[in-house]
């Protein structure tokens, strides 16, 4: 294999990948907020949880008192029939009304303000995410960049994410950054995306969307603005042209009813629109929307037997020889 001129970039990518995967451990936690909106939501939860815990204890205490003091005809805290009715009215009507109205004002008027969708044009960056069975297509309007299952954003910047769907209803959800929003056919839905510290945040489709709903994950990677700009610039470029005679992997990839029928590799004649854009696939963290890590061995396994790795996925098992599979894998690994 000939020497790769872009090795440093690749190393950086690998290093970042390792960091990201290391961070994959349980980072889909609603109560571990990394943005202003999500912090408001977490606080809202803890407030409601505290009040709920008290309410629950009161009822259980009443049941317990009824059990231990089962031989008196009076309320544990004194009072007879009318006092009991009074208790029902006070604890069953008056108090709940007060609590519920305050919760309504606090959550549905105030907290809701910080999680509501941003007005178009109110943010520095806008990006488009399209849910498809079963992966996420990501576009950066104003650039040629098209990627999948990996959303890079500059840290500390409000991003207006415009969601669409190509097929059924999906739901875009990155728990540590904000609430979720459904992607509905025939309309676009917006959601505010922002991260206040660098890192990779796992997200997953939250609306049942068919066979592989379980394997429709994506990572939001928040980077320092400079890093983000270099990433975006590289992502917008077409694939490196083949030096000299096209590699056998390239040929196999573009052969009749092979990969190019469904996949696009910008800068080549592969223009398929069924699967994700593969122009820079090798620089991504995972394959098949977070189903497997993006390592040579997994890549080969995925190309060879996708229906085993991700049953029901749109990617068919191709009838190719083992060498062809390996050559394709080598070619794809070169797509950085």
């Amino acid at each position: 294999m000939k020497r790769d001129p872009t090795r440093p970039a690749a190393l950086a990518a690998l290093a970042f990948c390792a960091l990201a995967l290391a961070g994959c451990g349980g980072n889909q936690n609603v109560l571990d907020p990394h943005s202003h909106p999500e912090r408001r939501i977490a606080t809202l939860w803890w407030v409601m949880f505290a009040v709920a815990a008290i309410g629950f204890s009161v009822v259980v205490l009443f049941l317990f008192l009824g059990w231990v003091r089962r031989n008196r005809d009076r309320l544990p805290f004194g009072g007879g029939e009318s006092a009991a009715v009074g208790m029902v009215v006070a604890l069953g009507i008056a108090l709940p009304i007060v609590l519920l109205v305050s919760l309504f004002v606090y959550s549905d008027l105030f907290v809701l303000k910080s999680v509501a969708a941003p007005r178009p044009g109110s943010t520095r960056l806008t990006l488009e995410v399209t849910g498809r069975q079963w992966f996420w297509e990501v576009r950066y309007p104003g650039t040629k960049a098209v990627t999948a299952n990996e959303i890079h954003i500059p840290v500390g910047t409000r991003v207006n994410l415009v969601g669409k769907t190509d097929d059924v209803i999906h739901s875009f959800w990155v728990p540590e950054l904000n609430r979720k929003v459904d992607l509905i056919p025939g309309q676009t839905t917006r959601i505010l995306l922002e991260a206040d510290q660098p890192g990779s945040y796992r997200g997953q489709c939250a609306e049942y969307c068919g066979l592989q709903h379980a394997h429709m994950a994506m990572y939001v990677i928040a980077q320092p603005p400079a890093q983000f700009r270099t990433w975006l610039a590289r992502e917008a470029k077409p694939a490196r042209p083949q030096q000299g005679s096209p590699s056998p992997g390239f040929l196999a990839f573009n052969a009749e009813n092979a990969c190019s029928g469904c996949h696009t590799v910008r800068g080549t004649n592969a223009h398929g629109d069924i699967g994700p854009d593969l122009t820079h696939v090798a620089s991504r963290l995972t394959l098949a929307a977070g189903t497997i890590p993006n390592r040579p061995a997994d890549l080969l396994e995925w190309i060879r037997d996708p229906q085993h790795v991700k049953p029901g996925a749109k990617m068919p098992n191709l009838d190719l020889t083992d060498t062809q599979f390996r050559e394709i894998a080598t070619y794809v690994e070169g797509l950085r």
Partner: protein
Amino acid sequence: MIAARAPRRIELLQWFGLFGGAAAWTLQHAALFAVAVARCNSGSAQWGIDATAWKLGLTIGAAVVAAGAELAAGVTWMRTRGAAESEAPPRGRLHFFSLCALVGNVLFLGAILLDGVGSLYWHPCGQA
């Protein structure tokens, strides 16, 4: 055997008390939803519906009816004070339902006001 008849007026008060708030909230709630849909959809948006005016009118109207129902329930309750809830009808039943209505209308009045405040607070078509 035909049950003793109560004076027509108190019967009406009792039934208005029982159903007034419910009817008011139902109409307001459904109408608020209809207005919101009509205001924010491409087709009906051209009709230039004044959402705010509708919401205000519906809320005030419904609130007045619900308050009236609560009042009616109160009157029925006073008129039948001292009756046991399980006493023979019509007195017992009037008292029974006046109690029910006293609670129900409070809820409906609350729902009507929250509905109104909430829907007026937010921009009519701002996406959640």
